[in-house]
């Protein structure tokens, strides 16, 4: 097992080197999966202010007034992605790179 364990790593480095480089050099996860490198944000122009995301958020990170765009408090957000699933208006987006993400504190 020790001999074959590196295979998944070696093949991904070989064929997807740019993805590793994106993580290392630009702190950017192209697939937007790595929690430390992404952040969730509410699009102000799409948000109808229904409050569904705020109600569902397990860490109480989304707040706002009804009928006005809500906002995600990055320090509280645990990057679970539930808000994206419950939003009917596609108003939550995931961003990565350019300093987005909370680092390893998630």
């Amino acid at each position, binding site marked *: 097992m020790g001999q074959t364990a590196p295979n998944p790593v070696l093949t991904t480095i070989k064929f997807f080197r740019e993805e590793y480089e994106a993580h290392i050099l630009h702190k950017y996860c192209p697939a937007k999966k790595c929690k430390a490198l992404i952040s969730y944000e509410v699009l102000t122009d799409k948000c109808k202010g229904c409050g569904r995301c705020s109600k569902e958020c*397990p860490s109480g990170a989304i707040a706002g007034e009804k009928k006005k765009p809500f906002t995600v408090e990055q320090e509280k957000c645990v990057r*679970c*992605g*539930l808000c994206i*699933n419950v939003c009917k208006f596609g108003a939550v987006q995931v961003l990565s790179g350019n300093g987005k993400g909370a680092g390893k504190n998630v």
Partner: protein
Amino acid sequence: MKTASQLSKHTSSSPLAIIDQIVRDHNLDEGSAIVILQQIQAAFGYVGKPMLERVSQLTGIPASVLYSIVTFYTQFRLEPVGENFIQVCHGTACHLAGAERISEVLQQETGVPEGKTSADGKFTVKKVACLGCCSLGPVVTVNEETFARVTPDKARQMIKEKRASCQCGHSNAEEVATID
């Protein structure tokens, strides 16, 4: 699995007598240590240290060796499990389908960290390598029941239902009321 039927088969005997019987059934076979321990777990739900010592006395296999076997294989549990033994599949397909989220939700809902049992004995939540239903991921099993294509919502609902139908004798009146 076998827990219920095995238990009822042995209910008249004392715990030690059950172990003695299992060991006697297998003692003549070569290399039966794992089989003996599996049957003890099937009867009691776990393999505790006093049980290991009893097996050791009867078979002559040092308790340390038995302990090393029990800690090597993931199937064995040294502590009793909760009434609802929840296994979350973390095979590759389920991982891709979002098993991590399901585990998080189950931990939140039950309040139990991975691999542990809740204080009221209702839930044990555990990750498993692969349950082999890869096209139906994420897969969760609760005791013998298998749930396919589990979503965070379904997982939450499932815990609520299990909590309401819990047979462990705790008062459920409050929880039942909140579900409807």
